[in-house]
């Protein structure tokens, strides 16, 4: 009787075999498998592709840096972060534009790397690898408090009625939405994985797919949007507790 009941339980349990992975999961796994095969198959260096690739990369970067650094030096001048916005409205036009351009290049509050060239007066750089190389990994500065204060100050200043020409010289437009970027991945599957993990933990999030210079595609996992900065800061702390360092981004869509 016991054995019969055990068989009965096993048979009953087998009825649950209709529960299978959703289609998007199948696609993600097969994509991973396909890409892994393709990457190896087309490698010109055979088993030494890592060493070969690294060598070529180092040589190319060295040459580019030697050629480019003198011309690009001005973009890396230290910029006073805390009071950069205050004198903008009173400064002469050229100085204001220059300050905005430097901030766009030096501060990660403004926008993502590939969005920086959208600042109207930014000169066209000879090379674009500065922006491109920043993208694969999201690095967050430690001084979160300073960043938040700056964002708050920016928003307050921009909402003040007496300001002149705020729109073209702003870092954070008042009508924009704030997000926390929890990660940016070349592999869509990795982005989906992080998104699902965050959604499982109760975060509202979405994936934004961007193409940089029409070459590289990245999948960003963004938490938000946040209507106010307090909520943003709270979520940033929660993510930090989970070991995820998120950067604040503003969407102007």
């Amino acid at each position: 009787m016991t054995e019969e009941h055990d068989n009965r339980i096993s048979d009953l349990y087998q009825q649950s075999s209709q529960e299978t992975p959703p289609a998007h999961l199948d696609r993600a796994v097969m994509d991973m498998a396909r890409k892994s095969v393709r990457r190896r198959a087309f490698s010109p260096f055979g088993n030494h592709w890592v060493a070969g690739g690294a060598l070529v990369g180092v040589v190319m970067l060295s040459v580019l840096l030697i050629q480019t650094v003198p011309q690009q030096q001005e973009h890396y001048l230290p910029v006073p972060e805390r009071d950069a916005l205050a004198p903008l409205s009173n400064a002469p036009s050229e100085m204001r534009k220059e300050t905005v351009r430097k901030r766009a290049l030096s501060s990660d509050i403004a926008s993502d790397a590939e969005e920086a060239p959208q600042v109207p007066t930014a000169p066209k750089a000879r090379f674009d690898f500065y922006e491109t190389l920043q993208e694969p990994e999201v690095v967050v500065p430690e001084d979160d408090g300073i960043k938040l204060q700056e964002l708050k100050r920016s928003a307050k200043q921009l909402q003040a009625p007496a300001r002149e020409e705020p729109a073209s010289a702003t870092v954070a437009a008042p009508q924009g939405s704030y997000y926390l970027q929890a990660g940016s991945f070349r592999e869509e599957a990795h982005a989906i994985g992080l998104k699902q993990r965050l959604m499982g933990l109760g975060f509202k999030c979405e994936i934004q797919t961007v193409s940089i210079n029409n070459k590289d595609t990245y999948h960003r996992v963004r938490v938000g949007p946040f209507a106010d900065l307090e909520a943003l800061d709270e979520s940033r702390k929660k993510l930090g507790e989970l070991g995820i360092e998120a950067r604040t981004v503003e969407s102007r869509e």
Partner: protein
Amino acid sequence: MVDRAIKPGNDEALMLRYAGGDLDAFQKLYERHRGGLYRYFLRQSNQSVAEELFQDVWMRVVQSRKRYRPKALFKTWLYTLARNRLFDHYRRDAARPVRNTEPGDDSPEISMPDTNPGPQRLLDLRDCLEQLLQLVSGLPNVQRQTFLLRHEAGMSLAEIAETMSTGAETAKSRLRYAMDRLRAAIAKECLEGEL
């Protein structure tokens, strides 16, 4: 560890073919194990976690294809990866193995489902299955693992023992305890009549 012959078309042969770049071989392998592995996680977490862990395990399979050596059965290797990943998850998130946790459900322990259907209605197959799945999720950890390796991976006791790094006798008694518990808790109607 038993020395196993690699026959064309078995899991180990497919994995070796994939290591050599044959994507069709991977697809066959994936088709064979996707359902079982997915449900293995689903019975021990919620859907979003199950999907994350499922994907992670396959990513590890893909990443380690070049290093794969058929010293053990593919499925014992696969479920060892799965088991380790699940334990990582439990450790990291201090998550409880709760099935279909709904928002607001903060009950600290898994309660055994009410097996009394009430006088108004009889249990049908779906009720019995739902009850069984809840009971499986509520089994003690090692018993649940043993039950799932048996029923989802189709493992023998020796294979379960290898995957769980224990002896065959231990695996056997864990499975027996699991079945005893399920049999005692499930509604009697579910053990009688036609399914």
